[in-house]
């Protein structure tokens, strides 16, 4: 499954970047995220509860923010498994200066297996897109919030 999307923020990359690599912010914005604990090397142990179509599952896995080039880009590597199957995904996040704000481009691919593939695959890309939208919406709110 391939995913590409673009998001626009009113703050410049230098202001957005710290939020994108802050585990507390990521955990609070990631839908269904129950825990995100650092395990070193920009990696985190994550526990997520995700519902797609008829498949709701609790996934445990790791999230790695690799190849960080602040405030331009990093590679998000996710591996997770749970009752409903497994998810292995990788996405590149690129931040581009855009008229005082930021255009954030996401390009990634994911492989899923287990029940989630059997039952939910048809809805997977739209569900993933929805989760991403919610994540970045949340992030946008945080950038607007008074610090």
């Amino acid at each position, binding site marked *: 499954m391939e995913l590409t999307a673009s998001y626009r923020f009113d703050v410049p990359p230098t202001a957005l970047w710290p939020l994108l690599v802050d585990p507390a912010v990521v955990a609070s914005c990631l839908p269904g995220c129950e825990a995100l604990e650092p395990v070193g090397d920009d990696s985190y142990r994550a526990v997520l509860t995700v519902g797609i179509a008829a498949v709701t599952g609790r996934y445990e896995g790791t999230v790695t923010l690799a190849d960080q080039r602040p405030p331009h880009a990093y590679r998000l590597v996710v591996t997770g498994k749970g009752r409903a199957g497994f998810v292995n995904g990788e996405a590149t996040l690129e931040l581009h200066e855009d008229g005082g704000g930021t255009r954030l481009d996401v390009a990634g691919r994911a492989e899923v*297996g287990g029940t989630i593939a059997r039952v939910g695959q*048809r809805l997977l890309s739209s569900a993933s897109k929805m989760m991403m939208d919610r994540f970045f919406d949340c992030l946008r709110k945080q950038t607007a919030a008074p610090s």
Partner: protein
Amino acid sequence: MATRLFGSGIRRREDPRLITGSATYTDDLTLPGMVHAAMLRSPHAHATVGTIDISRAQASPGVLAVYTGKDTSDGLQPMPCAWLVPDADLKVATYPCIATDTVRYVGDIVAVVVAEDPYQAYDALDLIDVEYTALPAVTNPAEAAGDGAPQVHADVDKNQAFHWAVSGGDVDAAFKDAEVVVKERIIQQRLIPNAMEPRAALAEYDQASGDLTLWNTTQNPHILRFLNSVVTGVPEDRARIIAPEVGGGFGSKIPAYPGEFITVFCAKQLGRPVKWNETRSENYQATTHGRDHVQEIELAAKKDGTITGLRCTVWAGMGAYLSTAAPGIPTILHGLMLPACYGIPAIKEDVYGVYTNTTPVEAYRGAGRPEATFMVERMVDRLAGEIGMDPADVRKKNLIPAFDDGHDTVTGLTYDSGDYPTALDKLLSHADYARLRAEQATARKSGRYIGLGLSTYVEMCGLGPSQVAGAIGFQGGLWESAIVRVHPTGKVHVFIGTSPHGQGEETTFAQIVADEIGVGADDVKVIHGDTDTTPMGWGTYGSRTTAVGGAALAKAARKVRDKAKVIAAHLLEAAVEDMEFADGKYSVKGSPDKAKSLAEVALMANVAWNMPANVEAGLEASTFYDPPNFTFPFGAHLAVVEVDKATGQVDLKRYVAIDDCGPQINPVIVEGQVHGGVVQGIGQALWEQAVYDDSGQLVTGSMLDYALPRAGRLPEIEVLSTVTPSPHHPLGVKGIGEAGTIASTVAVYNAVMDALGPLGVETIDMPFTPERVWRAIQQATKGH
């Protein structure tokens, strides 16, 4: 005159319990102390298995045991393949009940949990941590056979499970001299059988005596008893296999599965009854699938429509392992039928059985014969298009004339009897084919696309004789047995070795016996599906239950009748030669008043106060019947469709089926079998397909994504018949369980292509979803 029950459409005695929900399936059984198993299945299509951490699962509430492949490798031998097709370089890869180092399809079992209740068992599956390292997977059989494809089994080069070939006649000459050659590549897509009852097993093992009782949803309990002894080590005399009510099989319950043997293993280990009931989701991924052929076909002919040769190559997906009977299906049951009802004089087929990272493929209603019929019938229509002849006329030109004493084919079969032209003529006149063609032409003028699809078929069923079974590598016999036991009150128990599961033999077999010995059908109870009470038999598949088991039963009943005649003669103080069985009574010829009923004879036989000299007490007989040949039912089907050019929607407007299964014991049941079979075949043409993604995930993993036929989308099916008795069957009957499926897929396919012909569409891969049909229309009419 006693009413003859043979031929009477009496109601199925099975139905009240089925439609009121009082039937007892495996999952309805509960035993004291019973616990529940759940299988952990691989989410990967192909992966190596590292460490498996079961500690958290073991500590989970209610869990009694967790076993992995390492724990079961001593107690469970690998799954046997029981159809070892000869001269095919067959490579049976090791098929462990529980995978140890490698998983090869999504659904391969890696562990089993046994817990006090099923929910605890399923919850504990979540707590097993398996370290997988994913490997590249391959799912398409033609790709798997190619260079550089991922290897499903390290010791099977190019994933080639077998290469089987059949040939007859001079194919090279046929193609060299051909005036017309038509070619097509056909995908017989993978199908999911969808029995209403998923698989289930309940095992009870007495650790003191070593006795095992296994309730299992199977089509062949006696074969399962044998295979169970091989895999679990429980000897046949210690194992009782019971098939309670079985909620459909369609071939998917022929094979033995790891699931039931793992259940037996757990019961042996724990000393408690263990039940395993698969979920629908497991059923989709791990109960065998059907079809999955990639076929390349060429037909040679003369310009006048005479078919002269057929040459083809088939890549048959076998899945990750060879299921019990799998190798015989795309070979023996498929290639031998290619001469079809035309007696095609030159045939050459190469079949490559190919391992892929998918669910094992087995028999599915028709099993090999729908795929063969499809190839021939599709090519006949292609030929008709090529030479500008009506498809009905091409068929008429080539059909074998009527015969009643055998027709030899170039593939070595002898069709028993047939009258193919009459079946086709009857179809054409019933449907008013000429009028339909005229209507089609008129409709086209107004932009409506109506299509007519014909399929004339002959199939082989009534699998037997055993000598042939041996020659074709079937690791068993193909005879059948029956016991007819008459009780003192004249009530009858019939014990049969076959194992009906929806086909209605509890009714039709009572009809056979009633006529043969002179009782009412209601006086006969048919008992099946329990290896401790029924005689050995080889199961219900290949439309063989009535064709072979019914013959055994008729012969056993006739033995009872002969003995009853001897006893009646004694009681009437008449000579046996002077006795006759008429109007359901045993009477002295010419003196119908001097007669005994079966009940009177049975009472004397059972009390034995006054028996003829040298005649044993009791009124009972058994038979082992090994048929001299297969039976060859045939028929002609017509589908009428209308395709909406704008949307690609196919509307099946009419379906007419003419089937000849010989004399019909119960025409209502025959009609039901035809209905079900036809609908399953239509399902393949229009809706059904199991789809794997590139990584080997089954994406049609539920009924949300796998489209089954629904009544609302089907026309009333018009069922007619002709009657051509089998010369070698004691009752002349041939079998009807699969005929509908064998004929109908290609009838619908031909109809759709006939509708789209004017638009230039030549081929579409099934199923004909609106999207595919629409795309094909766009492609063909691009720029117009």
